[in-house]
């Protein structure tokens, strides 16, 4: 084996927070060889970004490297002096950030930002730098390098900005490219293009890549080897095919079971609980309390990274890595797939009908009115009772505007919204109050949707208080609904800041369900959640729909999630309906070109054990 390009050895990092030390990464070791793509997957708090930033020596000020070393071609990066680091960073090691919107300087045209790197690091003159920049822009498949060169970052789309960032990172032909969630801020089609680009560039340039993401699909599409991080511990490491197809770690297996698949309606299964933040967690298995196969030893002893036969290329941090029982761990709890829509006679029992709905934003309060911005044009659909209609679209498609307009929260809305046959826009005050009790909304970001000054009880009881439900009954109903969303009485007096993201979203769901609504509008309800938590929330949504016999309007950009829950789909783009219809035919044989592109763009991977997973 040749000398690795980058060798991280026994790296432990903690953060000082309010006088305490919170460990973030424990004895993390990883070697990356020249030309190799290594993906690091993990949920929030897994330490994946910490590991990445440590390589660049870009850790925040309150980070403490407790132990370990990071060597690049034998140079210790953690103890290197400023001059050595300056010679390496940007030249030999280059970084691509998650948000290209903030990583580029908004006041300088894009081309000059790349040319500056060339002049500084490689001694190009002005004309030469300009020439080379345009070549680089062409390399990242930008068709119009002259225009992009002259553009300010805000004039470029998110995908274009990320291409510019990649071009900048490649400008000095680095040996190692570090990518921190490079596709997370992008829409799904753009994400697919950027992943394709990175893959083809990597083949062309043969540089090594350390690719960090929470998105298993994105990592699977690109990595040769995958490392799985959880709560600061490397749980499993090995060739991508084996991690995806023959994982020997309960956490990896749970993660794989939690990822919704675009290919078909299979039950997704959540991992109960939330990641441990206990500073003492590294004395045992960090996953023990959520693991279905855990035994006494898991709480007593930290597992080593065990080699998985046939060779040591795959290693798993589990006491039972080579015990067949972990294969069965997640199959026990698997629920039957959500029953797909039973065909019903059209028009029977209609709950919501939207006809010719448009929303215009008048721009500002101006003497000379500018042309109004049309966020939604002539949208029509019908939603029968107890059914799930998914509204699918990328950012800016108008899907959230649609949700707000239906609830009469958009002043610029025109058209008709009929709820139980009554025109929502024409309701009087009393009628509107009744409507608001029957139609609820849940937002994407649970932190923003819960008033931080209110306890869980106050939050969930408020809709009941509005409906003049007596105080004593309120408590009983709040308890019942909290139990239904999987939160016990313990939570009644807690405040949102004491809850994890998944718990907060459960509280938001409880608040929506407590009035026993007929319609719940779910605006990207799982987007802000980790994938294992997302699966649990999806299970909960399916269960509650049966219990309350309500209908969902499920707004999402994630087609794989939609496939798990929806009966019908409506595809929205730039405020207009592209295609709509029952889920199965639409996913199997989309008629619309945009729908086809959307479906094709979802990163997918196979975990089929017979064939072995392989990057698409």
């Amino acid at each position, binding site marked *: 084996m040749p000398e690795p390009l980058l060798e991280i050895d026994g790296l432990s990092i903690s*953060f*000082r*927070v*309010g*006088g305490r030390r*919170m460990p*973030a990464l424990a004895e993390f070791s990883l070697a990356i060889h020249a030309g190799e793509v290594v993906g690091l997957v993990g949920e*929030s*708090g897994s*330490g994946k*970004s*910490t590991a990445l*930033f440590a390589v660049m020596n870009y850790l*925040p*000020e*309150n980070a403490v490297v407790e132990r370990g070393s990071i060597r690049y071609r034998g140079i210790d990066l953690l103890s290197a002096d400023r001059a050595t680091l300056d010679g390496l960073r940007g030249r030999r090691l280059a970084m691509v950030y998650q948000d290209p919107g903030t990583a580029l300087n908004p006041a300088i045209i894009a081309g000059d930002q790349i040319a500056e790197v060339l002049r500084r690091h490689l001694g190009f003159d002005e004309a030469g730098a300009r020439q080379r920049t345009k070549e680089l822009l062409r390399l990242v498949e930008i068709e119009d390098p002259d225009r992009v060169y002259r553009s300010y970052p805000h004039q470029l789309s998110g995908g274009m900005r990320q291409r510019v960032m990649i071009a900048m990172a490649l400008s000095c032909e680095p040996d190692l490219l570090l990518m921190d969630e490079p596709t997370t801020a992008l829409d799904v089609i753009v994400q697919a293009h950027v992943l394709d680009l990175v893959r083809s560039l990597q083949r062309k340039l043969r540089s090594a890549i350390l690719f960090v993401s929470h998105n298993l699909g994105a990592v699977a599409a690109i990595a040769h080897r995958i490392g799985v991080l959880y709560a600061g511990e490397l749980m499993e490491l090995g060739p991508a095919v084996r991690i995806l197809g023959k994982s020997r770690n309960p956490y990896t297996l749970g993660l794989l079971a939690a990822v919704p698949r675009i290919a078909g309606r299979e039950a997704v299964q959540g991992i109960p609980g939330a990641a441990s933040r206990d500073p003492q967690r590294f004395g045992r298995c960090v996953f023990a309390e959520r693991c279905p196969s855990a035994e006494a030893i898991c709480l007593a002893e930290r597992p080593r990274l065990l080699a998985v036969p046939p060779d040591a290329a795959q290693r798993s941090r589990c006491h039972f890595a080579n015990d067949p029982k972990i294969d069965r761990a997640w199959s026990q709890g698997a629920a039957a797939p959500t029953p797909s829509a039973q065909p019903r006679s059209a028009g029977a029992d209609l709950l919501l009908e939207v006809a010719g709905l448009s929303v215009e934003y008048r721009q500002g*309060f101006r003497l000379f009115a500018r042309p109004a911005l049309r966020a939604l044009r002539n949208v029509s659909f019908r939603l029968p009772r107890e059914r799930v209609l998914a509204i699918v679209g990328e950012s800016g498609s108008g899907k959230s505007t649609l949700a*707000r307009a239906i*609830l009469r*929260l958009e002043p610029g809305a025109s058209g008709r919204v009929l709820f139980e046959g009554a025109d929502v826009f024409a309701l009087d005050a009393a009628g*509107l*109050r009744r409507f*608001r*009790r029957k139609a*609820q*909304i849940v*937002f*994407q*970001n649970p932190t*923003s*949707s*819960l*008033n*931080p*000054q209110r306890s869980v009880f106050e939050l969930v009881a*408020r*809709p009941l208080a*509005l409906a003049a439900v007596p105080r004593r009954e309120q408590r009983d109903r709040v308890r019942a609904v909290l139990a239904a969303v999987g939160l016990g009485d313990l939570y009644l007096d807690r405040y949102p*800041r004491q809850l994890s993201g998944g718990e907060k979203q459960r509280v938001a769901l409880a*608040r929506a369900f407590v009035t026993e609504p007929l319609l719940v509008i779910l605006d990207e309800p799982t987007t802000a959640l980790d994938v294992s938590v997302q699966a649990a929330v999806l299970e909960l949504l399916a269960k509650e729909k049966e219990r309350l016999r309500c209908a969902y309007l499920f707004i999402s950009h994630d087609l794989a999630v939609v496939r798990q829950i929806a009966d019908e789909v409506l595809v929205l783009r730039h405020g207009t309906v592209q295609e709509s219809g029952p889920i199965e035919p639409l996913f199997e044989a989309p008629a619309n070109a945009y729908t086809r592109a959307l479906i094709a763009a979802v990163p997918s991977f196979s975990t089929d054990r017979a064939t072995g997973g392989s990057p698409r």
Partner: protein
Amino acid sequence: MTELTAAAPPARRQRNAYLALGLALTLAAIAAAALGLLYTPYPPARIDLLHPLARPSLGHLLGTDRYGRDVLSRVLAGGWRSLTLGFGATGLGLAIGLPVALATAYYRGAVDQIVMRFVDALLSIPTLVFALLIIVGLGPGQAQAIVALGVAAAPKFVRIVRSAALSAASEDYVTAAKARGERALYVQYGEVLPNIWPPVIVEASVNIGFALMGGAALSYLGLGTQPPFADWGVMINEAQKQISVTFWPLLGPALAISLSIIGFNLFGEGLRDRLHLRAALADA
């Protein structure tokens, strides 16, 4: 990624020291004013023409003024008038500014634009000049000074509270409240207000110091508290006429007012840091 955005450790000890010092000075000022209502070494208006402009001595700890009145007694007795002015003007400013700010942040649109342009116009007038203009209309006196300084402070409160309220009003919990049919006043006072208390409290305590200074200035100009009643501004006004002879009568009221202003400011800023720190910790 939360671990990467966690706040760097603040110099907590230093910030707590500011807060403690501010709190101590503030409480001392309030205690002195309260004491002055109950007890003074001499009656504050007792004239002793045999001992004018005396230096500090055991009999008169802060000396006497040009009529031989005991400066310490007058500082104590005048305290409550000065503090009433500070608290009163700030309370009035809040009472005007808070509802306007919450309403504009809630309704936005044309109402917001018109109100805020008007507020901007008022903000362009220096606060003290604004207060002077009002007091010209109302006539001199303690109550008039409170009204003038309170009204003059209101535009600043509108600006600060509105910007905090705007960001709170853009949170989903406000949309959620509207979506479940809450009334406008409940959303403003039940959902938005509890989340913007920190900047409001901080601004109010800083403003108390500012109003103390403004009140002293008005009294100094003869437009606030009227002689023979003493407040710290009036005392400074009277004492500065003899500054070429002696500065001792000036020292007591000047110290009282400076320390109070410093106290309220340190308290406000210490509180701000403390609240920010707590928010940072809660997010971590």
